[in-house]
């Protein structure tokens, strides 16, 4: 046995960690559990409250662990829960060769065969797995208290709506002021002015919208000078559309999500009307972005390899910058069978993974059509405030303009789209047989592509 319950207790930083780990002891939270007994390592994926799972590794020889969660505790509750699971139910773990993400961590560790240091039992707090398993009794609630709670919740909701409507009024006033005083002045002071109105949105309970406004300066200033006015107009126009959409339909889930915050994972899973698609999915790419509002956003773009349901899905999470660097949740190109549950909306895109199974075979990318931007246009029509749309492009090449800017050019001719970043030089010498990318109306951001040399991922 690689690890025992006794060692799990010793490894826990405190009783609170054991208690937190006990709440993860459900098999539904662990779509992947694996072990390599020769290498004395166990690893797993744990579905937390976010869209992207956490990847957890434990070296059973010295109980050192690694987890992609933002916790600063070592070991975190996920690593503890993994050790605990293995100690209690080793048969639930599949014997396997470690995947690349496990090998990379193992490869970086420099170990000797010297015996590991004795676990530090910490400041005399007793730690007990038995006590951690004890469920806290629920206090009974009387009808009057329930009624008070409901009334308070209704009042909070009404106050929130009032606050948001006030914020929308202020936003439109601000935009009108910018038009009146001239957009050239706004372009000259974009970060400062956007920061101010973004803060007002946060004060007005429109946190998502505030975060979005904070990203406008980076998006506009990334464009060449001659395109910035159009870029700014596009951004402001979407804010107007979104504000007016909220007034017209404040309870519409996709509008609320864009203005306040997203529903919790549990809320989406419990929604009987949520779109559920069981299919083979491939990780088309990941983007991890540091934002101006001190958050890091993690986007995992999945492509539906079969014909039923949306072509793409987005797993989206945000983390405070203070939590540190994020690791990829998946390997680009990884395929799995899964039921995705989509957040409700007019053009479903954001989703969470329900059940997932590893698969051994590989399914090819779907056939592309000759009007690849049609899907993006449909998405834009349904959600006119949306900023990007995923697209699957047919065969094309990366060409360089006479000003050294990269363009994606369809092999059949006709369609040419500017690419946001200079690709690796090798890419200019390859046919991109199919390309998964994001289109924001002005620039293409390539996630991955199939070439005669193999699959390319630009988020590596």
């Amino acid at each position: 046995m690689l690890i025992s319950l006794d060692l799990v207790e010793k490894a826990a930083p405190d009783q609170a960690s054991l208690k937190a780990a006990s709440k993860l002891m459900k098999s539904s939270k662990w779509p992947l559990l694996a072990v390599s007994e020769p290498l004395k390592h166990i690893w797993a994926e744990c579905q937390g409250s976010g869209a992207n799972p956490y990847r957890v590794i434990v070296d059973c020889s010295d109980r050192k662990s690694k987890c992609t969660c933002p916790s600063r505790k070592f070991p975190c509750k996920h690593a503890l829960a993994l050790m605990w699971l293995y100690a209690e139910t080793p048969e639930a773990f599949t014997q396997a060769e470690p995947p690349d993400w496990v090998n990379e961590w193992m490869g970086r560790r420099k170990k000797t065969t010297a015996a590991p240091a004795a676990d530090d039992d910490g400041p005399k707090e007793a730690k007990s797995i038995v006590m951690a398993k004890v469920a806290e009794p629920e206090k009974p609630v009387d009808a009057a208290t329930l009624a008070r709670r409901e009334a308070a919740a209704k009042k909070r909701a009404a106050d929130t709506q009032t606050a948001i409507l006030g914020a929308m009024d202020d936003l439109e006033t601000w935009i009108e002021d910018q038009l009146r005083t001239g957009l050239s002045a706004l372009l000259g002071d974009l970060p400062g002015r956007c920061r101010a109105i973004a803060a007002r949105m946060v004060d007005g309970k429109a946190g998502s919208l505030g975060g979005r406004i904070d990203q406008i300066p980076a998006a506009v200033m990334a464009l060449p000078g001659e395109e910035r006015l159009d870029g700014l107009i596009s951004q402001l126009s979407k804010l107007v559309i979104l504000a007016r959409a909220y007034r017209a339909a404040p309870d519409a889930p996709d509008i609320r999500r864009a203005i306040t915050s997203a529903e919790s994972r549990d809320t989406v899973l419990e929604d009987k009307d949520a779109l559920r698609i069981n299919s083979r999915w491939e990780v088309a790419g990941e983007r991890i972005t540091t934002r101006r509002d001190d958050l890091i956003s993690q986007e995992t773009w999945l492509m539906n390899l079969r014909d039923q349901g949306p072509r793409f899905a987005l797993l989206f999470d945000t983390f405070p910058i203070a939590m540190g660097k994020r690791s990829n949740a998946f390997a680009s190109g990884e395929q799995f069978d899964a039921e995705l549950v989509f957040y409700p909306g007019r053009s479903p895109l954001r989703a969470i993974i329900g059940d997932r199974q590893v698969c051994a075979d590989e399914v090819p990318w779907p056939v592309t059509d000759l009007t690849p931007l049609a899907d993006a246009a449909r998405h834009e029509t349904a959600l006119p405030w949306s900023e990007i749309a995923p697209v699957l492009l047919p065969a094309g090449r990366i060409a360089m303009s006479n000003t050294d800017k990269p363009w994606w050019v369809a092999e059949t001719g006709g369609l040419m789209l500017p690419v946001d970043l200079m690709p690796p030089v090798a890419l200019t010498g390859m046919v991109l047989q199919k390309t998964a990318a994001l289109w924001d109306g002005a620039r293409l951001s390539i996630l991955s592509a199939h070439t005669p040399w193999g699959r390319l991922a630009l988020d590596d």
Partner: protein
Amino acid sequence: MTDPMAQIEALKTQWMTGSATPGTGPWPHLDELSRLALTGQYLRIATRPASAAKVTIAPEIPTLPLNPMPVAARPLFRRALAAKLVPATVVVGFVAARGFAVNPLDWTPARNEAGLPDVYAPWRDWLDGNTGAIGDAPLTAETWDDFPPHSRYHLLETLHANRPEDARALILQVAPTLAADQRLRMLGCLRARFGPEDVAVLEPFATDRSSKVQSFVRTQLARVGRVGETAPEALAELPDFIETMRAGILSRKQVVSARKLKTQAQRKRRGDILAQLTLKSVADQLGLSPDQVVERWDFGDATEDMISLVAATGTDDHVRAFARRVASQKAQPGPLLDRLSHETRRDIGLGLLPFDGWILDQTQLWITQPDGTVPMAMLQEGSSLRDLAGQFRIETGPAEERMLERALSFLGLLADREAAIALMDIFTEAGALAVDNRLSLLRLNTAL
């Protein structure tokens, strides 16, 4: 009907300056924010960024005359490069020696990247934008300019190996018409298989207007014993710096050694003098044969100067003999390396293995492009492997850690595949994890 784009452009201009007039432009009946919303949507849906006036699509990357790297080896190759334990071109050279080409999705060379195997000439040409179709046309004076630059020099070397008369005739015809750097490169194609028959090709360039070409010609002619005249004044000063003497208490062998000097100025003068002489002229002045000078040199002061002298003016036999002595003395080979074939350097380097300790730094000096062909029997001699394996059992500081990484990486590229598999077993038994980054080149070796 007024063009909507023209109306929108006018409205944009007004917004830019803050001079928008209500009721003008598109959608005059709407409020300002509604017009903004519609303008934004119109620009996004009804328009697209103007296509670039001119775009250039590069030719496709050429395939190389090597097998594609096995799929299973590609992640190991990427990991080996990411570990940055040896230069990328050394790993690429190792992979080429095994008969495989790198996948350009995993790595492409930088333009003008030094140390790239010759077989990658087509990629060099592609990076430079030179991709003339080669097809089956022979390389001749008439077709010289039709071939991409890097590829044609690579083809010339192959021609010199297979049809040396044709190669010589081509060089004599084309080289005089080239710029100095291209002329040097063309003459350099003779280096790998230079022999007495090539002397007639080089001699016309002995007085080339480029000093680099002259120096190259001198060095190559020296390989076959053809050395130029020596300045008599320099020869006259030689006894001030180099002498023969008897050394050793019992054997009293004759050695050739440098006189002890007191000042830096004297040492500089010694270097200047030797740079003007040849091995033969030094030997004649000392009353010895060049072979005797090589075998009796007393490694101490002036060794660097002597190494330069032999490298510049010794025959291939002299250079080989002196190089072996330099290696046994653990001295720096310097310019001798350029005079030695890959095989000779390998032999010398492997000869050091049993005595080199676990760091293998002397062996690494001589074998700068390991080709994965050394069997386990050779690697097992001496205590180097045992000492190396022992490093996994102890805590090491940063300096030792760096040496360990270098030694393991070097072994990873030196060993043949069976030896690499055996080494992985030895090191994992000694306590290393199979996926340890320090073993990344060994793992790559086992996969090719």
